[in-house]
């Protein structure tokens, strides 16, 4: 069981991924954007942060960079709905910045669990 911060601006995505995570008995804290996510990250201990790349208040990339500064060891999975200019490149960039995995929406359940377990085990790939 892990404590996971889930950040996405789309409530249906939050709901879906929360359901998937709680099914596996993880503890999930959610945030609708980077600002809220940062605030929650600061007051809680998290094993993993799953964050969307494009969000209205704080872009995912910016959020990841800030997370890295605050906690060099926290594991991060970047997710993105793609689209918009160079979005997929941002996923790659997220990886370079320290996200252990980058997933494109829509994420299949099996793939999600697989990446999740590898991440939590310490070797995501």
């Amino acid at each position: 069981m892990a404590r996971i911060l889930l950040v996405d601006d789309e409530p249906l995505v939050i709901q879906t991924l929360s359901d998937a995570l709680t099914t596996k008995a993880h503890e999930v804290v959610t945030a609708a954007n980077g600002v809220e996510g940062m605030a929650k990250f600061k007051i809680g201990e998290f094993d993993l942060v799953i964050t969307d790349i494009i969000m209205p208040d704080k872009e995912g990339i910016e959020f990841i960079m800030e997370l890295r500064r605050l906690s060099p060891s926290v594991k991060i999975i970047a997710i993105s709905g793609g689209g918009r200019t160079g979005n997929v490149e941002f996923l790659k960039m997220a990886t370079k910045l320290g996200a252990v995995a980058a997933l494109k929406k829509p994420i299949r359940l099996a793939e999600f669990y697989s990446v999740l377990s590898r991440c939590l085990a310490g070797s995501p790939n």
Partner: protein
Amino acid sequence: MPQNYDAPQPSERNDEALRRSEERFRRVVEASPSAMVMIGRRGIIQMVNAQTERVFGYSRSELLGKSVEILIPERFRREHPNLRGDYFDSPEPRPMGKGRIFYGRRKDGSEFPIEIGLNPVENDNEPMVLSAIVDVSDRQQANLQASYLAAIVASSGDAIIGKALDGTITSWNPAAQRLFGYSESFAIGQSISLLIPPDRSAEEDNILAILRRGDRLDHFETVRRRADGTDIDVSLTVSPIRDISGKIVGASKIVRDITELKYSADRLRRSEERFRSIFGAIAEGIFIADPNTGVFTEVNEPGARMYGYAVDEMIGLDIAAISSGDAPYDLASARAWIEKAAATGTPQTFDWYSKDKSGRLFWTEISIQIGIVSGGSVVIAIARDVTERRQLEAQLRQALKMEAIGTLAGGVAHELNNLLQPIIMMTELVMTSASIESKEFKQLEHVVDAGVKATEIVQRILDFGRAGEVSHGLIELNLVVGEAVSFIRTILPSTVALTVEIDKTPRFIRGDKTQITQILINLATNARDAMGDTIGRLLVSLSTNQDDLELVAPERRTLKRRQYALLAVEDSGAGMDCETAQRIFEPFFTTKEVGKGTGLGLSVTHGIVTGHGGIIQVDTQPGLGTRFSIFFPLEQSEDSTPGNITPMEEM
């Protein structure tokens, strides 16, 4: 000889001499060219001659014994007996009425002018009057003509000068006075050399020589000098004047001032020259055509060249001959444009699908207007070959469309992916608690499948939006194509035979490996769909496009002269008609059934190729398969080796 007239008879006493004298008198009277009438005091005609019969139209017997008044118009008859009485009171030879014109009356009632001379004679001791009557109609007519001619000469706008053969001026009309500035009284008697500039003095000798031969000099253009010393341009017409015997005694000279005419002609010539030089110098085609028939009457060199004709060949052709003929680029439309230009009086500019001598069709921009030449209207058309402009426009339109669609696609994809996330994963979550054998599980599986298919469509839209945004590294095309081919094998049914022709020469291009792979997969997918379930063949080939390769299609001319890698994908499928082939690169254009194609595959392909600085072409015919040729500019660096390949992932 007179035979039967009622002349006084000589008396028995008259001797032979008198008889002979009377006979002479009769003969003289009879032979006179004048009409002779003898009357007594009472006016009774005693004798007439043959000329009287001719002049008055009566026979002798109709006149003898009648009153002389029958030969006088009625309005003068009443007065005549008195005048006659007066004459008999003091008879002496004299002309009647002192030069006045009198009138005679013919038998038919017509009148004519006469002059009358009167002579008293005696006949048998009776006083008589012998009248000699001359018809002066001809003389009057001649006088009238002479005065007409004089009036014409006097009122002529041209100077009319008479001169003797020695060059002495003999007549000088008012126009001559106006033109040269010399008065008539001064000019007459002077030598014609008065009017000739010294450097032209020899001319007069030549003119005189022509005259002596009896020839005329017509519209001889030369220069003459005025009284004030200024020279004027004139046109001379000189005709010989002959006397009654036909001998040349002088010349009439008509002098017309053509200074103004020469100036206008000069201006016209200069204007014509200017027009010619402009007409020839303009790089655009200029055509002058008849507005009714559309036949060209003039064309400049660039205009003829544009259509593949020589200038001479083009004159006589009409608008239809150089139009594609496909509505609206036919004669009827051309007429409509001409009518519009004529009706509005303003130039009309429009694009026109033209046809050259060889039948090649190309786009032109035409500007027409109606001009007036020599009082008739003509169509003046300026034509410009806009093939290149049309291509650029098409490329720009395509680029703008791609950009707009790219932006739209990115936004839509993002939203859709966020919606597909719960659809797919929520379903999968439900499925984890359902029995795999259950009906519900199968149903939920369909939901997931649909979601995944939707994901694929969104991915294509995204790829489309991303076309051209990728940073290009150096890639070895043979390797990329080789890898892609192995992938293509997996999507082809067993009915399709795949042939791969790649020679060993390494080819380096700047590009994106994934995108090149995607191009091949897109083209192979289309080929597969075009072949359906039939036995087919798919050929993928990669070669180097040599410089001497003939670049036939207009698009290929935009390639710079360098080496290109030619990647070709050729199938034996259904092929396409011309209309379809023209639209295949348009976004969302698809011939596949609803749900089978997004209409984005080939526009993505086009975008990727263009993004690589390349060109994609399609050669196809219904039933004969389709061949896509893609030209990628080759990198020429000698030391390019696969080891130098820049990973495309680098940003």
